[in-house]
């Protein structure tokens, strides 16, 4: 089984800042990490490989320094790594990103299964996984919390819902986005780290993935960020006084009003 895991380098949520002029995330001096949801996607891919055999390829679109997260992925069990990197990709929204990723996946011969994190913790759109599946013309399931059955040509998975879960059977090839509940990602291994150090990362440019320049980067992105701001908290606050009984009565009355 050939599994491609899409990973994204994101700023560590612990020290994120916004550049008020450009309305984009200021990445200067901020530690970069693998998007936490993507770690779960990688772990699931490695577990599938360990149990059923196959190859795990990690794929990312980003600047050259994004190779760091590819090496980290290899130290945690991935076999190969592909970096799609070109100045032409800069400023891509989710539409342009899914186009670029789909072209790259075609270039490396497709996959039986594509795994993504549910969403990235910087943009929080949760659009790239489903968008990529549509580009590839394959079925997808979002928010997968468990892979219940692995058959020759299909998988049975559990999709996390607000009020429980759906059990879905999907034919391969397919794409899943995963939630944190699916597994506990492992730490790197020493042999993995040694392999990652020596690994030659495949780098693909816009020309190498046969991309239509009009669909790349800022040019190919209909989404424009007009303004980024921290919302003002405007919640009202009132104190309920009186005996415990009176306080409970008043609270119950208010809660009922809102129902």
């Amino acid at each position, binding site marked *: 089984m050939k599994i491609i895991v899409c990973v994204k380098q994101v700023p560590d949520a612990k020290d994120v800042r916004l550049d008020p002029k450009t309305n984009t995330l200021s990445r200067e001096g901020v530690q970069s990490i693998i998007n936490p949801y993507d770690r779960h996607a990688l772990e699931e891919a490695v577990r599938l490989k360990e149990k059923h055999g196959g190859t795990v390829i990690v794929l990312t679109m980003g600047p050259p320094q994004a190779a760091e997260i590819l090496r980290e992925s290899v130290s945690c069990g991935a076999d190969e790594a592909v970096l799609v990197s070109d100045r032409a990709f800069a400023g891509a929204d989710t539409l342009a990103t899914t186009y670029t990723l789909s072209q790259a996946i075609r270039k490396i011969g497709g996959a039986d299964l594509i795994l993504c994190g549910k969403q990235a913790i910087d943009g929080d759109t949760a659009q790239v996984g489903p968008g990529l599946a549509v580009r590839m013309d394959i079925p997808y399931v979002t928010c997968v919390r468990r892979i219940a059955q692995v058959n020759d040509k299909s998988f049975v998975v559990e999709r996390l819902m607000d009020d429980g879960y759906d059990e879905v059977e999907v034919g391969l090839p397919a794409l899943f986005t995963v939630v944190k509940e699916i597994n506990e990602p*492992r*730490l*790197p*291994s*020493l*042999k*993995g*780290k*040694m392999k990652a*150090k020596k690994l030659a990362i495949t780098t693909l440019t816009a020309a190498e993935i046969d991309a239509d320049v009009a669909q790349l980067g800022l040019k190919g992105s209909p989404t424009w960020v007009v303004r980024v701001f921290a919302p003002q908290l405007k919640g009202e606050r009132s104190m309920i006084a009186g005996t415990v009984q009176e306080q409970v009565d008043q609270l119950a009355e208010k809660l009922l009003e809102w129902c």
Partner: protein
Amino acid sequence: MDYFLTEEQQMIVDLSRQIADELIIPQRAALDESEDFPTEILDAVAKADLFGIYIPEQYGGIGAGTFEIVLALEQFGRGCVGVATAFAASALGAFPIMIAGSEEMKQKYLPDIATGSKKAAFALTEANAGSDASGIQTTAVLDGDEWVLNGTKQWITNAGEARIYTVIAITDRSKGPRGASMFVVEDTDPGFSYGVKEKKLGIRASSTRELIFKDCRIPKDRLIGREGTGFITVMKTLDKSRPGIAILGVGLGQAALDEAVTYAKQRVQFGKPIISFQAVQHMLADMAIQLEAARSLVYAAAKHIDAHPRDMSKASSMCKVFATDMAMKVTVDAVQVLGGYGYMRDYPVEKMMRDAKILQIYEGTNQIQRNVVGQELNKEYTKA
């Protein structure tokens, strides 16, 4: 201080530090309280390939040496000496096989020890044989194609958790020290059982039990090396393993210093952080000086042992004494710096102080180590 580690050595440090910070430190207080064996942590250590650091590549290990295992143990010791002891005990159990085992024996046991799927343990101590190994009462008698073991080993680290035990027993009492031999005993061997788990002052995450051999029958080929070489194998094993205990003292000392300095910067008395008082500063300075001196000695001894496998004893014993005496002193001082808070279980330094004590006792008391250093000096100066 910068010790100019290679890229590979730095990887071992980084990975071990990550395990200490993310897995060991958050659980150490609970493990100390419950006295549970850290199975989950050791599974993660196994997955990270760290059980195989010192095992040659042809048996599935990383093929590094004493210095590299020392680097990993320093981080684990900084996290929790109990957990680190459980990890280190497997190496101690494996060393006799590495040092004196046959090729078939190495192929049979080392791969499982390297992956961590089976842990090993070393069994020397008995009720009447600790520092004086000649008091060993456990016997092994050849009966056809089997050795029959009888006797009881005491205070065996990892007993009940390990699957592979390297055990010394008397095969011919009339030959004195040349009448002892080492054997591999597996957990499933008939006639082999465990005593109750001991209650300890510190390192409570590690398990300590008796091994009981009652007509325990094992195949003939479980003899490690030749008959009568048991004591030599034990001495070589301990020479090789002692830097591992020494470095636990360094890791523990570092943890205690970290706690003490952090606290001294925050704690305000007489309107100032207590670190601004010379009385406290000098204590911290002495802790740091002793700690760094110990680290340098252990690193140097480990590198010496890797380079000179026939001349290990003095370097090994010197670093064990110095670093573990340092750990005792530094942890006691850390409790003093934290004052009343340090005495409470809410802070980690009282556990560190309790854990430190065993380092001066096990794998040869520090008094025995001084004997070794003295005897080696005597030999050296006789030669010259």
